[in-house]
């Protein structure tokens, strides 16, 4: 019985798990590992579900390189660069965290303080970057047409590169007004707000521009590129168009499958929330370090425990990065 019950007269008290330290690990650290394993399985569940849907729609899934192409202050098509930057920020903040833990082992309060601060700043930069990524994804890049059955068609120029609706669509004179509460139709909304053009404007402009071609979601599995339609096929597709979509949300996604947007928001959002809580916990520990709480306690194990969590968040990002942006 004594092995399983924390007795009151144990010198370290019940909260720290008593004298017994299974596997040489303190109570707090062990519990942090318990949490990390369960959280790792939660994330695996999400990513495996993403994989399931990815394989289910292997021939029509959006190509990440065509979705995440923005870099701050630069216009153009730059896949990967920004997300690579985000990855570096997170790895670097992991490094400062582990340096803080290391300094804690040597009871160097000043160094722990500095490295904790750098970790918090790294976390904030990452979170800001993620917000910016979301903003771009929600706002959209090119705009596309939704067909009757939910398929998306996009527009490309003669060289096969995607072009924005604004580049070729001519606005006709019809004045469109978004429904508001005052005319009693607040619940009837375009899925992505008032789209920049009407379906008719897009279709007419397409017919007037022989250089513009239509591209479907279907991926040619030999070349791994989306299929570009002939003029005759394109006209048949456009006859089925029901809506103009710009940007992405939980209901529509101009880049293709709505599921892609759903998973993107859910998984990066869940990860972002972990980063957010990590920053909060780091701030608490940071102030405790400044106040000398751990100096008085005689060890900096709290820094190590929160460090475990922070590294785990980094670890998850490594996988999210691979499965959302690379594979």
């Amino acid at each position, binding site marked *: 019985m004594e092995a399983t019950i924390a007795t009151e007269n144990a010198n370290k008290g019940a909260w720290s798990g008593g004298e017994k330290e299974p596997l040489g690990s303190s109570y707090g650290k062990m519990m942090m590992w318990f949490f990390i394993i369960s959280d790792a399985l939660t994330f695996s569940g999400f990513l495996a579900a993403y994989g399931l849907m990815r394989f289910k729609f292997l021939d029509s899934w959006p190509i990440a390189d065509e979705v995440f192409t923005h870099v701050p202050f630069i216009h153009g098509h730059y896949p990967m660069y920004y997300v690579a930057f985000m990855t570096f920020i997170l790895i670097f903040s992991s490094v400062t965290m582990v340096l803080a833990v290391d300094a804690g082992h040597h009871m160097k309060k000043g160094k722990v303080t500095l490295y904790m601060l750098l970790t918090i700043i790294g976390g904030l930069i990452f979170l800001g970057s993620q917000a910016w990524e979301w903003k771009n994804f929600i706002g959209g890049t090119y705009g596309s047409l939704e067909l009757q059955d939910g398929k998306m068609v996009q527009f490309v120029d003669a060289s096969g590169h995607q072009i924005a609706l604004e580049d070729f669509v001519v606005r006709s004179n019809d004045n469109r007004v978004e429904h508001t509460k005052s005319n009693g139709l607040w619940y009837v909304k375009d899925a992505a707000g008032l789209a920049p053009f009407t379906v008719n404007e897009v279709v007419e402009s397409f017919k007037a521009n022989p250089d513009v071609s239509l591209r479907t979601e279907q991926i040619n599995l030999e070349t791994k590129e989306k299929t570009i339609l002939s003029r005759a096929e394109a006209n048949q597709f456009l006859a089925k168009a029901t809506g103009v979509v710009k940007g992405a949300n939980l209901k529509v996604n101009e880049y293709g499958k709505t599921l892609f947007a759903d998973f993107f928001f859910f998984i990066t959002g869940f990860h972002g929330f972990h980063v957010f809580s990590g920053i909060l916990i780091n701030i608490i520990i940071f102030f405790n370090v400044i106040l000398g709480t751990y100096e008085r306690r005689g060890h900096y194990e709290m820094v190590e425990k929160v460090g475990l969590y922070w590294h785990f968040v980094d670890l998850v990002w490594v996988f999210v990065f*691979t499965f959302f942006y690379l594979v």
Partner: protein
Amino acid sequence: MAHAESHTGLIWKVFGFLSLITIVEVILGIAKPESIHLTKFLGTSILNWIFLILTLVKAYGIAWYFMHLKQEKAGLRRAIVWTSVFLICYLATLLLIEGNYMGDILSSYTKWTY
């Protein structure tokens, strides 16, 4: 868990290693060389296998050196690594096989002409 010596040098080495892997991943992700991007091997492209392996190497670096698994007792380390690796592989295998099956069935019903 007495840490007499400092690990600062090792930490920076691990950082350099992780950065190097990330740079390789990004270069491959942007270039997507056709010879490995379009060749299929065990269900997916060789490029994807490279990404997967590099990711696992990165995960190892983070868990072993940043999360100090290397310094934990072997029992704790095994309890953590084996449990998660086994469960995740199991889940991923089942779901990917299922997804592949659903894709095969679905694609014959999906219409790409009007």
